[in-house]
């Protein structure tokens, strides 16, 4: 009933992951047992990892063998794939999969320095309690700080800042408008 069929081909390119995947997908659709032999090693053609593990390269001779009810068709199909898929550009790129829908997992951004610096100056002013008028009218302080900010030297700003501000490097006068949050180390939960 079933017969063994075998055919060889010389590879036009390396048997990388994508050609190996195409080969294994095609082999899996046949009922016959199908194997690929290269360089003295044999792998189950239905196992993509086994086929990749052969490490078959351009110019190498590869043999496809099949035993089962649809063995001739299986050998013919796999020889065609080995001929086409290992050529450069022989396989079209597949569409990309999508992630599970849900909350955005993009990087979290700090607000721009235009907001951060005046707000920090307001906090500094409030913490120093140098002028009751300033703490009473924050909007005016922010506006003044925003006007004054470009002329103010970074050094002076840092020197005037309380220790916790200096410690945390909140001053980013010439930085980009958005600064990615620094990596947070946490246990893998």
């Amino acid at each position, binding site marked *: 009933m079933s017969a063994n069929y075998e055919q060889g081909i010389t590879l036009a390119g390396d048997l990388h*992951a*994508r050609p*190996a*995947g*195409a080969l*294994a*997908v*095609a*082999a*899996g*659709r046949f009922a016959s047992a199908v194997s690929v032999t290269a360089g003295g090693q044999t792998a189950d053609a*239905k*196992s*993509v*990892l*086994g086929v990749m*593990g052969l490490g078959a390269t351009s110019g190498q001779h590869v043999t496809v063998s099949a035993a089962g009810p649809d063995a001739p068709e299986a050998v013919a199909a796999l020889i065609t794939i080995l001929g086409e898929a290992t050529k450069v550009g022989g396989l079209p*790129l*597949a*569409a*990309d*999969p*999508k*992630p*599970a*829908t*849900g*909350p*955005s*997992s*993009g*990087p*979290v951004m700090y607000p721009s320095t235009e907001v951060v610096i005046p707000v920090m100056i307001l906090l500094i002013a409030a913490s120093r309690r140098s002028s009751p008028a300033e703490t009473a009218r924050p909007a005016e302080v922010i506006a003044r700080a925003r006007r004054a900010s470009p002329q103010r030297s970074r050094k002076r700003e840092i020197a005037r800042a309380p220790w916790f501000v200096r410690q945390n490097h909140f001053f980013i006068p010439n930085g980009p408008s958005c600064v990615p949050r620094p990596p*947070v180390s*946490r246990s*893998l*939960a």
Partner: protein
Amino acid sequence: MTAATVGIVLVSHSAELAAGAAHLAAQVSGGTVTIIAAGGTDDGDLGTSAAKVERGLSEAESGAGVVVLPDLGSAVLTVRAVLEDHGDAQSVLLADAPFVEGAVAATVTAAAGGDIKAVAAAAEEARHVRKL
């Protein structure tokens, strides 16, 4: 092939790792299988999210069942917690497999029309395939 194919859900502590493995598996298998990347916590940090796993299971299901691959031990806890509420244990299998190799092997087997048991077995066999 008109029959539904088995869907794959990749559960990783890292959103980038899950997405990268899904991308790789899709390219190797020809892009015909639904692969859902469920990586990271809900706010994008390292960790796993039961909500993402749950959504992944429903998005990957097209009638032939779903095989779930976790990356590290505690991802298994999250998946099991979701499966306890999921009800239909027949339609979801959790595969004990190396993450990248298992994802590629499972997806290729699903693309070839393998059933849920064959797809889970392909992922688990990946443990025994040598690279060198």
